[in-house]
């Protein structure tokens, strides 16, 4: 008894003609899932909508400083009255931050968000990409007069001009004559014997309680009352404190003027010195009347009238003579050793050129010595030990910086923001905080 022969007809007749209309477990499951999963999605959205919490629509994690406002979207996303849109505009940023204009002549002002991308989970919003800067500076134009800045800065490594101070033709404008080489040489003659000076004997950041080896003992400054604050927050560590005579030069470069006195003249303007001298000698001579008798020391000076062998000067004369001698010493030698003195005809006292010691070489960049303290000074300021000219600019050039600030994971930061700021903080206005605690912490 064989099974019925297979024909198309009996194969087809096994099939119920309506089979595709009837539900089948597989299709039903797919349908159920196709309904259930979107419903779950809707519920998720709905739940948050009911809780009036728009966190889920956030575009990403907040930066570290704004993280506390994660739930409070309206802190930045201020909805216009009646409008649907609630874009985070500059207005939102402005409730807490002042963002002074970069430059009056800039062609356009980007929005805050253009450079400071929130919702990316960046720790610091200030970390901007180079593009934020190069979008103008790569081909710099201004609305007003032509700019004096380089107009094609594209990036730090290989796209940044040499620092202005080091460009050919720039000199140190300081008028105090200083030869670094001598000061840094071995066996320098010091107040108590040969010394080897170090950079930090003159150059230190403005920490209050430092004592200088070669400073005068009672020099004190630093009026700022800086309590115990962490190094990273202390702006006074960024720049080297100005070099002053009192702290840094006085120990070796005494201002003695006369063997009669041990002290030197005060390091002050010529008229103060003159007054000092006058006072000093005037105080001295009543106590030492014998000095009034002056024996001419050397009588055969060419072209000089031969002075009398013995003279008895009046006190005034003696004071004047002594003051003149002292001033001669001072103006011509002692002071002139460092200062540039200008003698004007008919003016009894010279004019001392302003010292013009540059406090801050980078006008448009920030530099923090404290973060570089791991380095030996001469590593960057390599010119110092050999610099003999005052005019030498001993700043490290961009190539020195480029050695470490190459960018990438294994080098120091080389993006623009590391050294430059966009906002002109000189014109910073203070912003009054408007948030309450509960408002900051509450969601939306």
């Amino acid at each position, binding site marked *: 008894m064989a*099974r019925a022969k297979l024909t198309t007809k009996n194969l087809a007749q*096994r099939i119920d003609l309506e*089979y595709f209309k009837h539900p089948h477990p597989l299709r039903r499951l797919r349908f159920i899932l196709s309904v259930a999963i979107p419903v779950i999605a809707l519920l998720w*959205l709905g739940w948050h909508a009911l809780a009036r919490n728009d966190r889920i629509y956030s*575009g990403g994690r907040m930066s570290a400083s704004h993280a506390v406002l994660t739930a409070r979207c309206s802190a930045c996303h201020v909805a216009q009255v009646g409008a649907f849109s609630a874009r985070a505009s500059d207005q939102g940023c402005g409730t807490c931050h002042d963002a002074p204009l970069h430059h009056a002549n800039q062609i356009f002002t*980007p929005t805050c968000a253009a450079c400071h991308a929130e*919702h990316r989970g960046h720790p610091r919003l200030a970390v901007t990409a180079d593009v934020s800067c190069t*979008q103008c500076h790569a081909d710099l134009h201004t609305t007003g007069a032509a700019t004096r800045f380089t107009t094609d800065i594209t990036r730090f490594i290989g796209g940044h001009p040499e620092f202005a101070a080091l460009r050919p033709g720039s000199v140190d404008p300081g008028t105090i004559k200083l030869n670094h080489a001598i000061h840094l040489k071995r066996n320098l003659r010091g107040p108590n014997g040969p010394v080897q000076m170090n950079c930090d004997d003159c150059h230190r950041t403005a920490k209050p309680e430092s004592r200088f080896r070669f400073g005068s003992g009672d020099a004190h400054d630093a009026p700022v009352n800086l309590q115990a604050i962490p190094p990273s927050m202390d702006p006074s560590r960024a720049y080297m404190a100005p070099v002053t005579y009192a702290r840094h030069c006085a120990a070796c470069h005494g201002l003695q003027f006369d063997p009669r006195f041990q002290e030197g003249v005060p390091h002050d303007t010529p008229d103060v010195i003159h007054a000092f001298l006058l006072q000093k000698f005037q105080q001295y001579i009543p106590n030492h009347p014998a000095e009034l008798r002056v024996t001419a020391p050397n009588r055969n000076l060419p072209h000089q009238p031969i002075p009398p062998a013995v003279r008895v000067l009046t006190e005034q004369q003696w004071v004047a003579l002594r003051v003149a001698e002292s001033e001669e010493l001072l103006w011509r030698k002692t002071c002139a050793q460092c200062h540039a003195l200008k003698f004007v005809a008919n003016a009894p006292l010279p004019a001392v050129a302003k010292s013009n010691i540059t406090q801050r070489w980078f006008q448009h960049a920030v530099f923090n010595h404290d973060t570089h303290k791991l380095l030996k000074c001469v590593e960057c300021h390599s010119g110092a030990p050999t610099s003999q000219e005052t005019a030498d600019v001993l700043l490290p050039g961009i190539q020195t910086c480029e050695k470490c600030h190459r960018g990438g994971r294994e080098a120091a930061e080389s993006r623009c923001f590391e050294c430059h700021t966009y906002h002109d903080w000189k014109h910073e206005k203070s912003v009054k905080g408007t948030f309450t605690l509960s408002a900051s912490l509450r969601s939306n």
Partner: protein
Amino acid sequence: MRLDRTHRTWLIASLIIFGVSAVIYVVYAESSPAGPSGGSAIGLAFGIAGSLCMIFAGLLAARKKVPVWRLGRAQAWMRGHLWLGLLSLPLILFHGGFRFGGPLTSVLMVLLIVVVVSGLFGAALQHYMPPVMTTRIPMETIFEQIDRVRAQLLAEADEMVEAVCGPLNFQNATPVPGVRSSVATATVVTTDTIPLCNFYSREMRPFLQHERAQNAALSIKAKAAGIFEGLRTLLPAELHGTVKNLEDICEEERQLRRQMRYHHWLHGWLMLHVPLSLALLLLGCAHAIMALRY
């Protein structure tokens, strides 16, 4: 759908679109100060393009519901679904700047990746499985009717065995429509037939009846061959025809089970792909609205 020559146009077009978008993206990413962002003009353009691709891909399901409306051939829609669906992934990645973003956008990105990957998986299955099924299941039938056909097989086997062994009073002896009828000639039940009757009642019938009898020896072809060979030794020659028929029925049953398994593979990935894609579209909508708001 098999990828063959007919896809060439789509492939080239997709590659071009991808290439152009990649170039645009690279240029845009490099030149935007804050980096690529979904909300920037180009980012938005990518987002819209990606969304359009996704929406078109999603419309395939709708298109399949009205197969007769002349809205374009099903193959064209399918090709579009495949290629535009695939394109949507890079476009959305460009839109998001390769970032996952916040809660909703992370979910969306994950959904998109899962949907596209499951789609690729399904496409691969659709290449691989049909020829396998064609070769390995010669007695294939319509999947939804497998249970009905199995019932028919059971009835046929019952009939065959009862013709030899006499009425055996099986439960579920309800008439099944469409049974391939075989000529039933009753033979006298003798002691010779007892091995057959026992085998059928104890082993083969449960095997035919219950889908999940995985441990049954009969579910493995080699073992079944051995069992039937043994049965043939026990039975006289005139019953060998019946034994052969029963063996054929077992083979058909095995093939139908195999078909069920293969069909589950071939269609199972849709359980993931379809619901998630619906969720993707829904949440994508929500994202579009809210992202434009904020």
